[in-house]
């Protein structure tokens, strides 16, 4: 694991007023340029892990290294520049009174010169396709647009890693696609590392690798294909297999073997209606 951008080694964490450990001996490595999904039901420790990566919590045991910096109180501000975070609620992370003020907020905090700030705000908003909304106030934006602004304010800081903490869970399906497509294109353009923390397996299906957390420890990890093969096991962990995956399994049970696994409805539909042509 030479080129891991994030190393989590044997990390345990306990909330101050609780006896149970929220994280227990978690070890995890993230490759540079990888898209990693961390899934788990409520209380599996995935949010705690997310907050730890941003220095909002410190491990009780073990070490966390991000972009070559060990997580500690001295390094935390440098780490926050390397790792940007998009949170769940689109409203509660919008600090500025307008779109451009919000994107500039992180830059102001890091003491970027005003002239450069203007350029970076413009550039970041271009990347998420929100330049037309420069002076718009947050209450005139949809949830998906607000999350795109949140992504812009993260990439304006030019981080190495972008961490999505349930960033699409409060959005409607259209907003969800909007945000995921934005992330995908930015990731390809900038060579960013993406970590998405979610309980939505359809979102996890888009990742390169999936880590399943359960009761504060890593339950299993693998490619989305391998993870979805677990099927019943996932259900016992409180995770729902995406509909297209379940559907093609049911079809397989009926003797209709489709050529490949499907993660989106579109893929499934395409395969089903072309099935007879292949015979």
């Amino acid at each position, binding site marked *: 694991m030479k080129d891991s951008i994030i190393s989590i080694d044997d990390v345990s964490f306990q909330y101050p007023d609780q006896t149970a450990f929220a994280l227990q001996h978690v070890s995890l490595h993230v490759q540079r340029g990888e898209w990693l999904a961390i899934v788990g039901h409520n209380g599996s420790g995935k949010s705690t892990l997310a*907050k730890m990566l941003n220095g909002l919590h410190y491990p009780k045991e073990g070490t966390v290294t991000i972009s070559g910096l060990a997580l500690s109180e001295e390094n935390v501000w440098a780490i926050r520049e390397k790792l940007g975070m998009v949170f769940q609620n689109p409203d*509660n992370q919008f*600090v*500025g009174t307008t779109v451009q003020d919000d994107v500039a907020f992180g830059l*102001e*905090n890091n*003491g970027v010169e005003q002239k450069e700030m203007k350029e970076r705000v413009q550039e970041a908003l271009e990347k998420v396709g929100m330049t037309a909304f420069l002076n718009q106030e947050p*209450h005139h934006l949809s949830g998906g647009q607000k999350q795109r602004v949140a992504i812009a304010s993260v990439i304006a800081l030019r981080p190495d890693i972008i961490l999505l903490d349930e960033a699409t869970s409060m959005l409607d399906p259209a907003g969800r696609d909007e945000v995921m497509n934005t992330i995908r294109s930015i990731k390809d353009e900038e060579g960013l590392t993406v970590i998405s923390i979610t309980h939505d397996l359809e979102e996890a299906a888009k990742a390169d690798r999936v880590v399943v957390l359960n009761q504060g420890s890593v339950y299993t990890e693998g490619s989305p294909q391998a993870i979805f093969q677990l099927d019943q096991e996932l259900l016992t962990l409180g995770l729902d297999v995406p509909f297209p995956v379940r559907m093609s399994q049911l079809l397989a049970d009926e003797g209709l073997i489709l050529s490949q696994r499907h993660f989106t409805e579109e893929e499934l539909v395409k395969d089903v209606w072309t099935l007879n042509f292949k015979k």
Partner: protein
Amino acid sequence: MMEKIILGRYLPLNSVVHRMDPRAKLLFIFGFVFVVFLANNVLTYALLGVFTLFVIVLSNIKIQFLMTGLKPVIWLILFTFLLHVFFTKEGEVLAQLGFLSIYKGGVIKGAFISLRFLLLIFVTSLLTLTTPPISVTDGIESLFGPLKRVKVPVHELALMMSISLRFIPTLLDETDKIMKAQMARGADFTSGSLTSRIKAVIPLLIPLFVSAFKRAEELAVAMEARGYRGGEGRTKYRVLAWHGRDTAALLVLVALAAALFGLRS
């Protein structure tokens, strides 16, 4: 809900007044509040009136629009006028209504004071009408900047102001939603005695407060994640620029004050 309130609303037009530095506008209004008190006769009030009209015309804001904004205070103005009419006993008697006698001095004084009220309201509402709230905040932060030396948390106060401004529509939306949710459960906000109406507000306020605190907590985490660590070492995205017209505006105010000083009796 916001549409009815003119106070604190911003009208994005293009005018010299809109383009002025918010600091200049704040200083101007602060000065104007004192200058208004210099007027004490017909000539000086006329001069003040003409001057205010001139400023309104410069701002491109319709006088009718300012008039609608007067509605909430019109009773207050009327009340002060009548108070002076009935209770100031100066000059000759104009009319005798039973035990009340109306003096000429009372009418004049009442008119002057109402006019003073009116001018102050016009000019101060011009500030918010021509300046986006965020610029007002920036202006205040910059003007009070020197107070940082005596440990007044100017930056924090300004940030608090701008965050409150940003969350007003969000919380109004939320209030609306909670209200509908409670109405769907049979709550009645619009009828009944005053006490029962006040009681009906409680199930509205509690969820609102709970969610506001939750929002505050999440916002604080989000701000920290984006590197917020207080005002030190922070740069500003919005830079205020003081132009010649800003100095000119303040000089005009000084000239006005001098003229009023010369003309007052």
